[in-house]
């Protein structure tokens, strides 16, 4: 099967194009670094790959290594170089490297719809001529210019035409030529074109050198001569000289193909969004607004309605089923186990839908990168990066994508710390637990819910400060981030992405949580000898009692709470459904006091996240078992400690 690879700078619209071509709804957003893993799809019978964005073929952060390894080692049949038309020069810098790889290339000039507004015109024909490959103007988000895309791909593949490599200055070329002619380069492994390899040898690219056979002395001498001469001529190291040469080529081609009229400076949202006094209050206001609108306002209206609906269903269905003679155990399983358990989770669908929708709009409009910019100073003082704020904001919806997008953080320590603290931010699945306890123990006390968020943030800060104290090597960390253009999110994309997330939540309620609730009901109805018993003598109670002493010091050493926390490992929503099932009709106050309720909420908030988030953590900690268990141990220990303090003080 033919394989196409989408390659380009971060945030140039590769995934949007991928979604458009394959008809999928892969995760997109308007900030650099949304895609951190390669994704596969099918476009008109061809395999198409979406790769993380890269600025050059010399990788810097882990997700860029994924892209480079793929491009070099897996040999796509064709490279689709996705170019942000509003940022032509820097995009062409990458193009100058891609055309050297000995693969056919198509230049996909994306974001064409934004050109007019920016007063830019691009001569795509000329660009195509200069690189000897097709150049197509398109807009992936508007689905424009993609009508004949597959034909162009087939023509390019059939013609076997390779793109032209732009030449550097004569001085540089005179050193590249003899290295290309050297015998050493004639035995290159597949997929290592000679010109590209010669340049890599001069650059002393370590990743490349490690994949090559040892260099014979005669070739080594040739390379050393070239390096020494370049260093003297340009007064810089050879790698820098070549980057400079590439940019010179990019400048030249850009000025030949692009005309731009200086437009009057338009009003930019950045006048407020990153302003000296307004920026941080605005961020606080935006986040408070998101939660107020989704949880207080929408949730406040829909939750009682849906609860009433489910209690209506359970009462009447239960009565009906016993009237027609269904045995009590089956009746209970269906009504109290399944409907009760799943219903307690489904209650949260409307408010989570609104929360996901609003987060989606934040991700799409371009604000995320601005938050990273304004918060970097604060985040750095607690050992994190400005980019850590993006996972923390996304984590209010779900920790899994949040933990994954920490991958773009350049510095390893900052990245790992972000992975460990992201689950402290209450995700949508923990919300049912808090809502249940607050409405029972603290009705009308509106400040409890925000306090939970503050506790989450405080835990992030404490963890950051502690780890900074423990860290002995003070390294200088990099923070380099491109600010995307603001854009009005398209209704279609917001809808598709929100639908994807909320249907994931509903799907979970219909599978994992349904099974867990049914399983819990069965386990609490029978004893080990399979006799129907009261819950207190059941299998579940026996198992729960075995572990519950652990939670005694923090106020909830009851088997019901223990079992609820255990099922929470599969999915945090299960905590509520399990409590609903195990307590039967009894009130929460049979096993909780106000104090232990607070401790329980804190423990749920801070303890190790669900299994899906744990596996994301494991992956982002470099699949390092030791680091992972340390992280899990820390989260557990920290949660226990905080719950203990709260139980003592409250």
């Amino acid at each position, binding site marked *: 099967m033919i394989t196409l690879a989408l390659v380009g700078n971060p945030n140039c619209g590769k995934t949007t194009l991928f979604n458009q071509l394959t008809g999928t709804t892969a995760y997109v957003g308007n900030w650099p670094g949304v895609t951190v893993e390669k994704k596969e799809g099918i476009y008109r019978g061809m395999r198409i790959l979406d790769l993380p964005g890269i*600025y*050059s073929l*010399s990788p*810097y952060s882990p997700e860029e290594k994924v892209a480079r390894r793929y491009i070099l080692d897996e040999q796509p049949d064709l490279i689709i170089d996705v170019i942000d038309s*509003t*940022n*032509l*020069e*820097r995009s062409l*810098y990458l193009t100058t490297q891609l055309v050297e790889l000995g693969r056919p290339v198509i230049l996909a000039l994306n974001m064409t719809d934004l050109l007019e507004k920016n007063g830019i015109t691009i001569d795509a024909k000329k660009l195509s001529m200069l690189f000897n490959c097709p150049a197509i103007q398109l807009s992936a988000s508007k689905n424009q210019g993609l009508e004949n895309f597959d034909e162009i791909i087939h023509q390019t593949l059939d013609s076997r035409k390779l793109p032209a490599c732009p030449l550097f200055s004569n001085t540089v070329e005179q050193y590249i030529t003899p290295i290309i002619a050297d015998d050493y380069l004639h035995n290159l492994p597949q997929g290592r074109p000679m010109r590209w390899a010669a340049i890599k040898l001069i650059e002393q690219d370590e990743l490349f050198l490690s994949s090559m056979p040892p260099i014979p002395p005669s070739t080594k001498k040739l390379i050393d001569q070239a390096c020494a001469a370049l260093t003297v001529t340009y007064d*810089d190291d050879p*790698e*820098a000289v070549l*980057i*400079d040469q590439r*940019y*010179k080529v990019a400048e030249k081609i850009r000025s030949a193909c692009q005309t731009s009229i200086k437009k009057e400076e338009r009003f930019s949202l*950045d006048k407020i969004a*990153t*302003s*000296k*006094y307004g*920026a*941080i209050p605005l961020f606080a206001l935006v986040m408070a607004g998101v939660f107020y609108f989704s949880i207080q306002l929408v949730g406040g209206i829909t939750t009682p309605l849906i609860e009433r609906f489910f209690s209506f269903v359970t009462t009447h269905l239960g009565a009906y089923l016993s009237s027609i003679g269904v045995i009590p155990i089956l009746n209970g399983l269906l009504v109290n186990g399944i409907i009760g358990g799943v219903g307690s989770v489904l209650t949260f669908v409307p408010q989570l839908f609104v929360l996901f929708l609003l987060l989606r709009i934040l991700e799409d409009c371009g604000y995320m*990168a601005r938050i*990273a*910019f*304004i918060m*970097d*100073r*604060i985040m750095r003082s607690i050992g994190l990066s*400005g980019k850590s704020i993006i996972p923390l904001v996304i984590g209010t919806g779900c920790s899994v994508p949040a933990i994954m997008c920490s991958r773009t953080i350049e510095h390893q320590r900052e990245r790992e710390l972000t992975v460990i603290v992201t689950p402290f931010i209450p995700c949508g699945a923990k919300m049912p637990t808090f809502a249940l306890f607050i409405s029972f123990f603290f009705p009308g006390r509106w400040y409890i819910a925000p306090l939970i968020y503050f506790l989450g943030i405080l835990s992030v800060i404490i963890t950051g400060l502690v780890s900074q104290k423990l860290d002995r090597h003070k390294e*200088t960390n*990099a*923070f*380099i*981030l*491109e*600010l995307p253009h603001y854009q009005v999110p398209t209704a279609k994309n917001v809808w598709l992405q929100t639908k994807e997330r909320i249907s994931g939540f509903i799907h979970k309620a219909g599978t994992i949580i349904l099974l867990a609730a049914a399983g819990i009901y069965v386990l609490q109805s029978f004893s080990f000898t399979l006799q129907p018993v009261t819950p207190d003598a059941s299998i579940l109670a026996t198992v729960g009692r075995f572990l519950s002493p652990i939670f005694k010091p923090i106020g909830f050493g009851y088997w019901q709470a223990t079992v609820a926390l255990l099922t929470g490992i599969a999915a945090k929503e299960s905590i509520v459904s399990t409590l609903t099932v195990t307590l039967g009709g009894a009130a929460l106050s049979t096993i909780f006091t106000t104090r232990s309720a607070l401790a329980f909420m804190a423990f749920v908030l801070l303890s190790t996240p669900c299994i899906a988030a744990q596996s994301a953590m494991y992956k982002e900690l470099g699949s390092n078992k030791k680091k992972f268990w340390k992280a899990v141990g820390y989260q557990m220990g920290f949660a226990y400690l905080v719950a203990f303090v709260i139980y003592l003080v409250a």
Partner: protein
Amino acid sequence: MSNTVGSLTLGETGTVDAIDAPKELKRRLMDMGFTRGVAVKMIKVAPLGDPIEVELRGYNLCLRKAEGEHISLQQEPMK
């Protein structure tokens, strides 16, 4: 006249001369377009004084002042 990108004042433009930084960081900064002779304009300083936003090669980039200090500017007067 500012010596480095990190010390540019608001709205000031400078021309890149050289980058003095560890290999990886130097390469990254050059990949982003900081090569000799490029004009860099200081657009904004973040509310808490760091990082900074600069414009170069027609796009906007954020970096910490410490990174900006690695990029020295040419000293002849600019228009």
